[in-house]
């Protein structure tokens, strides 16, 4: 465990959230969130459904707008300035629960799209980058197929490759394995573990506690829109402090 913490550089802050609050209409969905993530850190966020975990990471690239508090990503303040939002989105990759691949484009085109149109990378170079990352997620042979022809696990690996093609500083994972069959979860988690070993800064919303133990530097437990507890994985799982954490852990680890 000591080895994985080596890569964290404490002075380089990638994400900072300062007293962030968000409402959906009357409903207070994020309550006073304070979070700082350093370069190379792997954070796992867990908690019961409706606790605001997804909303939290979706605020980091402005898929959701927060109403109070400050968020800055990669040193850029996240406000209404479209330029800032675009700049942040270029540096932040996101993987969704339902993959959200573009079904009318081939796997290769899915991966080349953002580099070509957002980063203005020449097509030949973008194709090289795409093939590089498709090889890394171990599906280069599927490059010319369409998403509909792939299994769920393969689609999610493509989604990871697609996000990596922008060479982001930070990767957000929004329940990446929740829509997968059990036998496909492993292939996606393996890809994520490899990514973590390469030193990628990651924030994962997931219920895969094995993954959290193996990879995370920090596990954050959320409930009712608040951060209830955060700790190193060993301490978090073996010695939870709050009653709500204990209850949650007993429910998901109980069987």
């Amino acid at each position: 465990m000591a080895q994985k913490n080596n890569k964290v550089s404490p002075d380089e802050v990638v994400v900072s959230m300062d007293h962030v609050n968000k409402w959906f209409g009357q409903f207070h969905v994020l309550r006073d969130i304070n979070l700082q993530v350093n370069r190379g850190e792997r954070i796992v966020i867990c908690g019961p459904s409706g606790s605001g975990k997804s909303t939290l990471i979706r605020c980091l690239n402005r898929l959701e707008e927060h109403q109070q508090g400050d968020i800055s990503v990669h040193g850029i303040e996240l406000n209404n300035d479209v330029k800032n939002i675009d700049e942040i989105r270029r540096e932040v990759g996101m993987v969704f629960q339902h993959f959200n691949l573009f079904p009318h484009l081939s796997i290769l085109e899915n991966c080349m799209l953002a580099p070509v149109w957002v980063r203005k990378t020449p097509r030949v170079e973008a194709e090289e980058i795409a093939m590089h990352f498709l090889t890394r997620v171990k599906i280069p042979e599927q490059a010319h197929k369409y998403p509909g022809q792939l299994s769920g696990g393969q689609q999610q690996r493509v989604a990871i490759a697609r996000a990596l093609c922008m060479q982001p500083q930070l990767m957000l994972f929004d329940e990446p394995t929740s829509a997968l069959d059990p036998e496909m979860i492993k292939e996606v988690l393996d890809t994520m573990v490899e990514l973590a070993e390469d030193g990628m800064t990651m924030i994962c919303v997931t219920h895969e506690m094995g993954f959290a133990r193996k990879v995370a530097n920090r596990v954050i437990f959320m409930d009712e829109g608040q951060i209830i507890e955060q700790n190193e994985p060993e301490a978090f799982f073996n010695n939870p402090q709050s009653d709500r954490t204990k209850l949650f852990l007993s429910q998901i680890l109980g069987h």
Partner: protein
Amino acid sequence: MTKKEKKIMRPGLDSHNLCFVRYEDAPILPAPPSEVGVTGWLYHNIFQSMNDFSSIQSCIKSILAALFTLFVFYFFVTQLYGFIDFALISAVWSDPEGLKRQACWTLEQGGSLPDGWHGACWPYIIAKAKFIMYGAYPGGELWRVNLTYLIGGSMLAWVLIEPLPFRKLVGFVLLVFYPMFATVMLSGGGGGFSTTVVGVSTLLGLSLLTISRLGKKGELPKIFSDIVAISGTAGWALIFIAAFIVVTGFDSGLINVDTRDWGGLLITLVVATTAIVASLPLGILLALGRRSEMPIARSLSIIFIEFWRGVPLITVLFMASVMIPLFMPEGVNFDSLLRALIGVTLWQSAYMAEVIRGGLQAIDKGQYEAADSMGLTYWQSMRLIILPQALKHVLPGIVNTVISVFKDTSLVSIVGIFDLLGATQSTLADAAWSTPVQSPTGYLVVASIFFVFCFGMSRYSMYLERKLNRGH
């Protein structure tokens, strides 16, 4: 054999005998004749509904099904035979003696055909072919129309046929330069142009393009971002209009043919292609506008769509031909065909917008989010992600709309523009060809021409659907 013994005879898989192992594969047998080949087809498509005689009820059902099948078959065959008989077998094909209407008269009517004869009078169509196809377009100038058809048709075929190279380039030329060429060829051009209109439009276009350039470099404040987004497209559109006016205004050396002399299929094709080609982009913009979060764009789109959808096309055409001239300043004369064209296009684009909006609504929210999370701009994600999928979803609806506008163009005859139907109808008034079969023959021709075009569009759309299918 008792019931109990029977049960034991079956291998395994019941609650008494929990262990079952298969040592020999069950044989792979050929399919029964009811599943494959001609017999299979006949069984599944005709006889499946009438082969059950196990009870009185199902006997009655089977007999009724058989009778109904026979009736439909009989009806279909007699109708088809009647049609073929009228159009081909009994038809009069030529009129070598120049008898005109007498060529298609029966003995009773004073001609030479047997009494009770009923068939198409093709010499009448041959004599009127030029009018049905081109209206009153001067006979010596028909090569201009034919050349326009030939060039347009071959370019369109080039764009539509998959393996040909440079399809995008040809499509660009077809959309941008061909309209100017066709206008000059058909009308002769040379009407001159108003320098003010061209100047203002060019200047406005250039300034919009500048805004777009500046906006893309990020040198304009954020509140202009919506204007920046469409200023590029709008700028090019204005410059296109200016170029169009200039090109068609110059004297081409061709004889001027007033649009009042255009007619027949020519009018139908001009009105339909203009309305179809122009209404698609307009419809896309309106559909995006209606779903936009910008209140002004959204309300303008809703007002536009609801207004044009709420008015019958005939009213639109009357407004265009009767009311607009009243509002025009003295001396300004706006071509009546052009007015009808604009009317049909705007009316059509409202329908197109709603069809496309249906497609936009079918796109999963995740597609928008994935595009956003990659940093694509609104227009990029629309162009690259959302619209290709949305348009594909509603391709049947778009083609439906396109086919219906193709047929609705007949309504322009109500404001004195002679389209295919109007021109054919006016030939019916020619007493020299007056026979009882004159109007059936004429309408048969009109219907066939419309059918060929509409059926062609329908088949191409089915081909497109298959081609764009990505198995999801």
